[in-house]
């Protein structure tokens, strides 16, 4: 009886449809608008404030004009962090790539506007001031230490690889050949640097291509070098503003884009983009919950009223 009565209960043009459209429109509009408008949350720092806050973080300045490609830094890194030399994972040369056993590599790039000179590019984790990988990690296996470096805790990791997706520099790598794999990446020699010592790579560099120090001072140093020899350097300190700034800074004599650096990255920290969306979750959930409760109660009342009428008949 009741079930059949309901079948014919609602015409297509009842008020609930209008209400639904209104609700849906309001919800969509609200979320859409909030997502598009620039976030003015207090948590979002200006780039100057961010640089100020991280001025004392341990950092590296890598001068690509000085690097001779000897690979001492790679050897020092492997010794310090007990990484293997693996046949299929070259750490020097044109095919050198970051890998599970390579926390840093020195890649050979045939860059430079046809001057024929080879450039050697030390690649490693850039230790973002606001790291996308740590913001993406669901279980806090990757985290930015209060001292600055971004470290990885294998015991927490579930292996979802969202950090690999999130990193704008393609830094974290995965141990694909293990049954239970882990993520691997440079930790800026966390134990050394938290004692105030230079990273193994910086300490090993024979030509002072890698300078270790507080980020604020290294940034000044980089600007000084560019100002002192403007004909030698391209006018760009890579890592000063990319994705909100990084602790590893590069200066170079050829355009960074020719050396495999992405120059199209936004200056805004990547976690800020996501946070503009995720911070809406509590209010969306609460608003939706309230609307659903209201709709549910209203419908129950309507159903009860209808049952009453049926009974009276």
């Amino acid at each position, binding site marked *: 009886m009741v079930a059949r009565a309901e079948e014919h209960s609602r015409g297509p043009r009842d008020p609930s449809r209008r209400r639904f459209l209104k609700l849906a429109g309001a919800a969509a509009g609200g979320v859409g608008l909030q997502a*598009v408008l620039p976030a003015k949350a207090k948590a979002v720092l200006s780039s100057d404030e961010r640089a100020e806050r991280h001025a004392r973080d341990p950092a590296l300045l890598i001068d690509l004009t000085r690097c001779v490609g000897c690979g001492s830094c790679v050897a020092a890194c492997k010794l310090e962090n007990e990484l293997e030399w693996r046949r299929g994972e070259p750490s020097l040369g044109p095919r050198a790539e970051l890998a599970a056993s390579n926390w840093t590599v020195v890649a050979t790039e045939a860059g430079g506007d046809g001057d024929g000179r080879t450039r050697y590019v030390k690649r490693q984790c850039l230790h973002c001031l606001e790291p996308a990988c740590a913001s993406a990690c669901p279980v806090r296996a990757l985290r930015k230490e209060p001292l600055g470096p971004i470290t990885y805790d294998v015991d*927490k990791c579930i*292996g979802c690889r969202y950090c690999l997706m999130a990193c704008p520099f393609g830094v974290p790598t*995965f141990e*694909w*050949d293990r049954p239970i794999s882990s993520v691997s990446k440079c930790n800026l020699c966390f134990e050394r640097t938290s004692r105030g010592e230079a990273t193994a790579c910086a300490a090993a560099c024979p030509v002072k291509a890698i300078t270790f120090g507080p980020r604020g001072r290294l940034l000044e140093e980089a600007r000084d070098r560019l100002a002192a020899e403007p004909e030698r350097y391209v006018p760009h300190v890579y890592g000063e503003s990319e994705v909100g700034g990084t602790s590893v800074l590069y200066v170079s004599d050829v355009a960074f884009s020719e050396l495999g650096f992405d120059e199209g990255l936004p200056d*805004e920290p990547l976690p800020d983009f996501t946070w503009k969306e995720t911070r809406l979750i509590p209010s969306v959930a609460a608003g939706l919950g309230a609307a659903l409760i209201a709709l*549910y109660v209203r419908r129950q009342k309507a159903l009860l009223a209808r049952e009453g009428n049926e009974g009276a008949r």
Partner: protein
Amino acid sequence: MSSVTTPQESTKRAWTLRMTSPRVALLAMAGLGFGVAVYRLIFGLGAATNLSDRWPWGLWVWWDVLTGVALAGGGYSTALLVHFLGRERWRAVERGALLTSLLGYLMVVTGLILDLGRWPNTWRALLFWAGNPHSVMFELIWCVGGYTVVQVVEFGYIFIERVRAPRLSRVLSAIYAPVLIVGIILPFLHQSALGSLYVIAAGRLDTLWWSMLLPLLFLMSSFFVGPAMATVESFLSARTHGRRPPTRALQEMLRLSAGIMVVYLGLKLGDLAWRGALPALVDGSVQSTLYLVEVGAGVLLPIILLLLPRVRSSPAGALTASVLVVLGVALNRANVVFTGMAAAAGGASYVPYWMEFAVTLGIIAAGILAYLFVTENFPIYREIRPEPPSSVEWAQLWPRQPRELRATR
């Protein structure tokens, strides 16, 4: 006569799954997928997939997670329309949609766990207070997991129709309303979270797909693909079981889909224009071609088909449009996962290993078999059953006189 059995079966209520040759083939596929899945768990992702540091996510994330969750969207959208917005007539398709959704999510959770490189640590994602609220992945795991549990509970209402369990049925009645409500909130959150996953790829995901509106676009597409999926599924199921699909309810739902798709299309193109990315649409690249196919054949064409009453009301027309919508959403997800990220992968290529296909196909085969088993043993298609159920059973199943309301009257 009890309404839960068909006339022929009214005397015995044994669990049945009729085996035909296609079903044997499905069983074989599921078996192969299971074997390969075990191999993958023992020997690792590198042994069973062609994933790499440049392509950390592949077939499983595209199909088993992103597309699977979207296509299962019919469950929450139908529940919202029936239980909160009073589209009573659409209840005819509700159970089918709920079942597809539940099985879809069980398939998604299976795929998700198989994709975890440190799967024995899966439980760590469930430590809520140790989690990272800034992580979209955290939100996703919690909402997908939670919603799967909610759906198991929702399915309990169908279960107790077939299996007598008075105590369980009392518990289920008591928590009916909150379960329904949570069952709408969680899908809203994680359907959009799937889009938010790629927001962090700012500057790397192709400008045609990267947008701050990704969460909204993913949410909307999961909503409008629901009725399309329900249509496809109803037609397939009707053919298998020799029944008539509930066309009237489906047509109305498809019209709603078309309306949402109009807004979706406007948002998508408006967003491109607002970001100044319209020129990328016509630059003749692979990306632009695939975008045009996605939007042209997967959104615009079905909108036109569904807005023509004659096409919509013909079974062939409704089915064609629905298939286009489903393929369009699958292509949209593929474009985000593969096409849009190809440039950022720096020329590295990814073609799934046969084992990846074997697992994905095995999960699908197992899902279809489970669907067949449930539809043949539980009362799923109400409208097309020989007799409408008696009011007593419905009162038990859909307690529309919750105690708190009766008290306030």
